[in-house]
């Protein structure tokens, strides 16, 4: 059977080392790692943005071999930036990636109906995020490549989006999502991929990756008593980790 995604020696000079990656069937894979660790670059390499080297096949097909119409059925890429260059109506932004019926469906799923005709420069950042997410989801591609989709969303919409992605996976799509909220990632992902310095350093079930010493080393944080704490402040307080309100800081929700 054809694998949903295979990437061999995918690389972007100076940003992403040669990386091999596979996704056998529909899965929700969350990409985690500190700023600058290569999450966006990996998504770029898979979406064939910025002349990456190596070979990527989605459903056995190379994206480069396909024209724009077919490629939109194969993959969708959502950038971390929420900028939209021209003040189009919300529905027109979604339509840039999909047909009429798909557009309406995606607008409904993200409850954008009442904004449909409003210009995107008159929406809040969170609302604009939802418009762009709807644009990426609308064509129902085989593989979703989403860069920090939950950033700017309120708690309810963060959860609803993750549930939508679970539904998409149940419907046969693959999803690869870069995010910083480790708890949210662990809760919804089938697989967690940890990145550092442009390479994959851990890849597996959320529980095993999250509990690994590698994650602690990469991020410099540890979970104590259900909350994340910087290793440095844990060392100062003798590992108790119960002083978050006194300068230690809580990490996890961004």
């Amino acid at each position: 059977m054809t694998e949903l995604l295979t990437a061999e020696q995918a690389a972007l000079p100076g940003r992403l080392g040669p990386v091999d990656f596979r996704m056998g069937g529909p899965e929700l894979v969350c990409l985690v790692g500190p700023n600058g660790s290569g999450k966006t670059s990996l998504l770029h390499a898979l979406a064939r943005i910025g002349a990456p080297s190596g070979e990527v096949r989605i459903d056995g097909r190379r994206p480069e071999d396909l024209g724009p119409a077919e490629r939109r059925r194969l993959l969708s890429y959502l950038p971390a930036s929420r900028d939209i260059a021209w003040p189009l109506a919300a529905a027109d932004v979604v339509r840039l990636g999909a047909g009429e019926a798909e557009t309406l469906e995606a607008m409904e799923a993200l409850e954008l109906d009442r904004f449909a005709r409003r210009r995107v420069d008159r929406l809040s950042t969170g609302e604009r995020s939802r418009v762009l997410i709807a644009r990426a989801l609308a064509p129902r591609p085989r593989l979703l490549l989403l860069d920090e989709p939950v950033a700017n969303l309120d708690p309810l919409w963060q959860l609803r989006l993750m549930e939508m992605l679970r539904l998409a996976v149940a419907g046969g799509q693959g999803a690869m999502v870069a995010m910083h909220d480790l708890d949210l990632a662990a809760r919804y992902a089938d697989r967690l991929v940890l990145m550092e310095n442009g390479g994959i350093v851990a890849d597996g079930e959320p529980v095993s990756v999250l509990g690994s010493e590698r994650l602690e080393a990469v991020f410099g944080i540890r979970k104590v008593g259900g909350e994340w704490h910087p290793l440095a402040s844990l060392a100062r307080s003798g590992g108790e980790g119960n002083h978050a309100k006194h300068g230690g800081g809580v990490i996890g929700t961004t």
Partner: protein
Amino acid sequence: MSRLALLLLLLAVALAFALSLALPWPPIAALLEQDRPLALALLWELRLPRALLALAYGAMLGASGAAIQGLFANPLASPDLTGTTSGAALGAVVTAYILGFSAPLALALGAVGGALGALLLLLALAGRRAETATLLLAGLAISALAGALTTLALALAPSPFAFYDAYEWLMGSLVDRSTEQAAFAALPALAAILLLLRLASPLDSLTLGEEVAQSFGYDVRRLRIEIVCLTAFGVGACVAICGAIGFVGLVAPIFARRLTGGHPGRAIAPAALIGGLLLLAADLVVRSAPLGRTLPIGVVTALLGAPFFLWLVAHMRWRLER
């Protein structure tokens, strides 16, 4: 854009073109009675080239303005503000001094070369997705440099006649061009516009940013090169025949995007029609102004366009401060 809007726009262009042939009517009416062949010759050899040039040059400025604005994701980009027209003018003046104004092919090549040089310099200075400030500063610097070099070329004119020829041509004029000259500007302009129209979808997808356009499978680097070359080719050919005409390339796309719901790529076709309409209208103003002499059309478009530009800057500032 709705079909009705497109139809109305086409009708308006056809009407302006017909008026451009017919006005002023009395001399034609008189000649039609006395000497029919002469009247037809006047229409064919004097008025048709003029109307054709106005339509083609205006359409070229509108289409290239829309494409450049889409490419830079900035409504202030246009062939004149980015130095394309002044670069073309410089190229043509320098070529004219060497070979004279009667060598249209060389003149056109010089103008295309100048336009290309200016656009490439702009890309190097302002970057891919130019911020308004860097784009305007770079465009200003290039226009100023090309303007200064053109003035220098004028100052070093080999003869007073050469100076006068160049000066008159620089102000932009559609008057007294032959049918061949009109074809020489109109055919490259038409080809460039048709080729630019193909780029509507990739330009629309650039609304979502360069990365998304690439993920759609569009080669953004190639798109950039195509737009720069087509714009330089079409605008250069028109500048070579008619001199520099400003502001149409800035104004037409802004109106056109109102018809396309803001889509930058889809605006290329209506921008071409609106550009042609604007220049035909400006030429009608030039002809009917009761001044006893013909105004250079470049002066008219600048007089009408500059206040619009000021309004645009004020409007953008208002939106930023809101």
